[in-house]
């Protein structure tokens, strides 16, 4: 992390005492300044984005205040705006997605890190990285033509017949809805969970495994009871990363969720997510309050992903610190 601190001796005496303008004639100083400007522009742009979100949402923030988060009504005509259905939809779909993706992802990561020989592990990881590169709209395309009919004709009726006593699986089988969106999200975030968890598991020091095995545990026991707990914070970090990704997903969700601001205990119900409502209604939001409400939703989404990403980074930092030599005996 240390930058090169060796200074090329200049032709002139004490370099630090020269004035700014005369230092400017030195090519390196110009380079430093220019590259600094580029780096600073990143900070500037990010600041502008946050400010734009804050000022754009001033009207609804003043009118509704905190009740914005607890109101169910979204009525553009009466100018009553409540974010609850969208927050609900965003959280539920992300929840379903993670519920499906986390076991699969961690299982696959364990396989890749612990069991598979190096070559197979690398090859499979290569393919999984490719899966992460598939754009959202393609998942949406597949969602519309493959997942929705599958849900409507097989999966939802099957769930209703077997688990229909649970409020989760009641209601008509439209094909679109929270559950479908959750499944599509699960497919989208699995690669993130796998690649990060795999790296974290690989970084667990060998002596942990060997110690467990030496004490007579089976392969599985050493993995599940020693290695995975050691890498726990990193794996949690990967889950938070996946969650942040799932919350911000727009296209794939809007194509399969049903686009109806509803709060329902059934997973088969159509719903709406924050990103989807912004995508659908932004260009037609007449009136400053309406537009402001959508921008406020954007601000909420931004804050959610910001917090989650921060937590994820923190957790992964914790894991790498643990792994690097300060291993617990």
């Amino acid at each position: 992390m240390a930058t090169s601190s060796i200074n090329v001796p200049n032709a002139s005496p004490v370099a630090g005492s020269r004035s700014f303008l005369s230092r400017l004639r030195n090519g390196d100083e110009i380079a430093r300044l220019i590259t600094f400007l580029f780096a600073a522009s990143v900070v500037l742009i990010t600041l502008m984005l946050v400010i734009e979100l804050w000022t754009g949402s001033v009207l609804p923030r003043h009118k509704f205040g905190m009740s914005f988060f607890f109101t169910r009504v979204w009525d553009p005509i009466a100018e009553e705006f409540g974010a609850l259905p969208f927050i609900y939809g965003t959280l539920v779909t992300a929840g379903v997605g993670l519920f499906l993706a986390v076991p699969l992802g961690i299982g696959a990561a364990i396989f890749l890190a612990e069991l598979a020989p190096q070559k197979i592990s690398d090859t499979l990881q290569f393919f999984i990285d490719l899966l992460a590169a598939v754009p959202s709209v393609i998942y949406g395309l597949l969602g519309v033509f493959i997942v929705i009919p599958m849900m409507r004709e097989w999966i939802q009726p099957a769930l209703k017949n077997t688990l229909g006593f649970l409020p989760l699986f009641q209601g008509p089988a439209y094909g679109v809805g929270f559950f479908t969106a959750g499944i599509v999200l699960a497919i989208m975030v699995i690669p993130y969970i796998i690649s990060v968890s795999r790296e974290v598991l690989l970084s667990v020091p060998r002596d942990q495994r060997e110690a467990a095995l030496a004490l007579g545990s089976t392969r599985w026991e050493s993995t599940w009871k020693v290695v995975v707990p050691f890498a726990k914070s990193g794996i949690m970090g990967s889950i938070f990363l996946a969650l942040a990704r799932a919350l911000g997903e727009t296209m794939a969700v809007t194509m399969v969720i049903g686009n109806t601001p509803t709060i329902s205990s059934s997973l088969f119900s159509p719903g709406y997510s924050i990103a989807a409502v912004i995508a659908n209604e932004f260009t037609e939001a007449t009136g400053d309050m309406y537009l402001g409400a959508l921008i406020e939703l954007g601000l909420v989404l931004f804050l959610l992903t910001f917090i989650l990403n921060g937590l994820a980074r923190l957790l992964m930092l914790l894991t790498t610190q643990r792994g690097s030599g300060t291993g617990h005996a």
Partner: protein
Amino acid sequence: MNFRLRWRKFVSGFMLAMTGVCALVAVAVLFFILGYLVYHGGTAINWDFFTKLPTPVGEAGGGMANAIVGSAKLLLLASLLGVPIGFFGGIYLAEFSGTKVAFVVRYAADLLNGVPSIVIGIFAYALVVLPFKHFSTIAGAFGLGLMMIPITLRSTEEFLHGVPRALREGSMALGASKWSTIMRVVVPAAYRGIVTAILLALARVAGETAPLLFTAFSNRYWSPGWSQPTASLPVMIFTYAISPYEDWHRQAWAAGLVLLGLILMVNIVARVILARGVAVPRS
């Protein structure tokens, strides 16, 4: 004792097999997606798709020539914004800056990276579309370029860090200035990694739809110059997929195949380059 051991061994074998199944499922999904796209899109791709403009609604035929060119223009312009800022900013972080400034810049870049793409669209609309009263390629490219910045910035910084100190010191010992060292020795050594990072960033934004919805909008015709709305592959896929017309569905599959094919190709090429040559100092 014996029974318990056998049970534990069985559980072990079973669970490990299950993890194998998980891995297989994950990879199978990829091939499944590709398979479907090839099957549905392959039959739909014809010469018209690449050369013709869309036909009036409800009439079969036509193609997405304007969307393909539109996407190319968007990506070109986006890299003009994203690459220099990321590249030179990364040089600053790796070669010039102190730790405090570096922390702030990296933090901002991570923040920008985590912003959902629809929010980037809102920002680009407010900043570029409204003041100039135009949906435009520039506005769309601005949004995409913003998304490229964090990736190129972090990657440039990382790969530059990976270049051994000895190279820098050797160059400076021979009397070269710092800037000269950076541009003639350090960057070329990290060249491979930086280029692949740019390619990966391009592949990432090539498929983004949300930021384009209210910036580049869409266009039935060719988009002249840079300040008019333009069609793009991802937006066309979205519009056609949710429509009721069979012919549009067919074209959406074709467009999906083309888009994904290009993205995967760039990814594969980039990763292969990366795997082969990890910052090897040139002799």
